């Protein structure tokens, strides 16, 4: 199992959907951390619990819904990804965004 600690490996203040919105955007996160590790075959845990405050739904949608748009199989994503955060809400949100992106 691989763990991505977002606060440590990416940024404590990730924000925005596109690279034009912020230096630590969802697009940057997906390209730099998610895509290189997603096809390793290992289960991937993305830990948002140490970031300050939280991330907006747009960030989650772009980061994980964007994986589906990049061609990653939604079923593979659902079985290999787990999202952890302080509130215990992001995992369900991410699954919903993966599902929605797969239908488009």
């Amino acid at each position, binding site marked *: 199992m691989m763990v991505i600690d977002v606060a440590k490996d990416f940024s404590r203040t990730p924000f925005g959907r596109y690279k034009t919105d912020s230096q630590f955007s969802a697009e940057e996160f997906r390209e730099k951390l998610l895509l290189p590790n997603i096809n390793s075959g290992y289960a991937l845990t993305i830990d948002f619990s140490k970031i300050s405050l*939280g991330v*907006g*739904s747009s960030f989650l949608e772009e980061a994980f819904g964007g994986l589906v748009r990049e061609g990653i199989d939604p079923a593979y994503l659902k079985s290999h990804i787990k999202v952890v955060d*302080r*509130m215990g809400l992001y995992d*369900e949100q991410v699954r*919903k965004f993966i599902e929605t992106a797969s239908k488009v």
Partner: protein
Amino acid sequence: MSESTGINLKVEENIYNKNYTVSCEIINIESYNIAKPKGNWVSEYHINLLIPTLLVLIGWRIIYLNAKKLATRSESKAILDSIIKLYEELDNLAVDFWLGEDEKQDSNRYLMIVMAKFETLSNRSTDLYKRNVNIDKSVLNNYYSALTLNCENIRKMSQSECAIYTQNILDLSRKNISALYENYNHTYKPTYKITKSFVRS
């Protein structure tokens, strides 16, 4: 304790001085003792002492449990009220952002405040959940999505699109609040029926 069972009473008359002499002879005395039945340690004394004490202890326990229940209910209501207040604050923020003037449509600022308040809301909801007031986490999820999804694109959206977003947020907020009250009343049932029947009797 002893009891006489046979008495011989004799009265003699003196014919000379007209005096009477009464003599009493006890023929048979049976004596017996009231002894404690062997193997039984509980006497009337013990029963007279134990039962009232037990009743007092039971009474105290009932009063304590009732007071504890009332205090827990008050605390839970206070947490519920604070959650409702947070929902109202978030709704006001959303309305100001989505339908407000351009100066108020700073998505960074909006997101920061919403995320801070939402985290407090989530923690309060967890506190209430620990007090057996069931809360469906998915409704919080939907509300969070409604509040924050696509907020950075507000300047590219039309007024009607913003209105739709706002309506959705307010609708979810009202539904969540109703569900919270319902779950609270389910856990801490109102006692008005008992009061009515008491007054009628």
